């Protein structure tokens, strides 16, 4: 499908439709006001002279040799100054031989020491816990409540010992 560019409006039979484009053409063909070029040129001249357009002055342009030399010198001085600053402020590290380590004070009761942060457990040189004499463990029988039975009935060897005590005076 071709779209005509300058052929006027479609369905131009209605009055006023064609005149719409003629209006646009009329406005597009309006002459520029008199003295426009002079005013524009004068405006440009003023802007150039007053430096309102951002541009380096000709003296400070990087085309000039001395400006380039100054820029190079500034870069070199910044690099050298920075290097010297780093060199002057950073101290050389001490050798390993010179480092004095704090003596480790072992606490007799263990715990954390202040220097070495080493914990000494007190299980070896601390108090020895005396284990109380406890009854021998009974084998667990299935289905029975052992604790209840042991509490109610004394063990068998205790019974025999009691019987021996009772018989012994009678035999005497």
């Amino acid at each position, binding site marked *: 499908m071709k779209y005509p560019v300058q052929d006027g409006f479609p369905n131009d039979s209605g009055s*006023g439709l064609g005149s719409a484009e003629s*209006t646009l053409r009329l406005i597009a*063909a309006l002459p520029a006001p008199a003295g426009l070029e002079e005013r524009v040129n004068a*405006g440009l001249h003023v802007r150039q002279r007053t430096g309102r357009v951002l541009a380096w002055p000709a003296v400070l342009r990087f085309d000039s*040799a001395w400006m380039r030399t100054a820029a190079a010198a500034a870069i070199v001085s910044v690099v050298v100054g920075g290097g010297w600053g780093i060199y002057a402020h950073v101290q050389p590290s001490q050798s390993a031989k010179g480092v004095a380590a704090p003596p480790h004070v072992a606490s007799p009761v263990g715990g954390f020491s202040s220097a070495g942060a080493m914990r000494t457990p007190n299980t070896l040189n601390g108090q020895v816990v005396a284990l109380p004499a406890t009854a021998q463990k009974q084998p667990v029988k299935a289905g029975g409540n052992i604790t209840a039975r042991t509490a109610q009935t004394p063990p068998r060897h205790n019974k025999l010992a009691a019987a021996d005590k009772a018989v012994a005076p009678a035999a005497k």
Partner: protein
Amino acid sequence: MSTSQAIYAGWMEIPFSAVNDKARTQAEEETLAALVSQYAGTLYRVAFSVLRNPSDAEDAVQETFLRVLRHRDTLDEVRDQRVWLIRIVWNIVLDRKRRAKTRPETDDVSELARVLPAKGLSAEQIASAAQHHAHVLACVDRLPAKERQVLMLSAFEELTSVEIASVLGITESSVRSRLFRARNLMAGLLQHTRT
């Protein structure tokens, strides 16, 4: 010649002198003045077609050449200076139009009555013509932006569809299809306002 020697030679051999600088500045000014005398009128008409105010249009032309002044170093790289300048002024006026408030139709009527040619017309005819033109422009303003831009630029007889495409940054086929749509929409709008 080693690489370092070549770099050093290139560094040192950049030509510079106050005479060269002055001559270059003068040449740039002459080029700019030539551009102004050649294209200021065209740019003004493009600006006026959008802004519809003589002083605003003149400001836009001034700003266009200020931008050219800023980019004067790249002037040699521009292939078509006319289209390039129209593109600059087009962007400027669209930006201004976007920022400005909507222009009332009565302003257009009075402005058009003042600037349109009125040879051999009575005062009534001038007023009537101005009113008609303002009404047409109000209909143009109601078009979608893409269609409106193409329609307005197509009114400039010195611009081909290829150049319009270059100004708007679209393809030529897009220009043609947008223009077709714009004309249909415009016809509908005018028909609607008549009834």
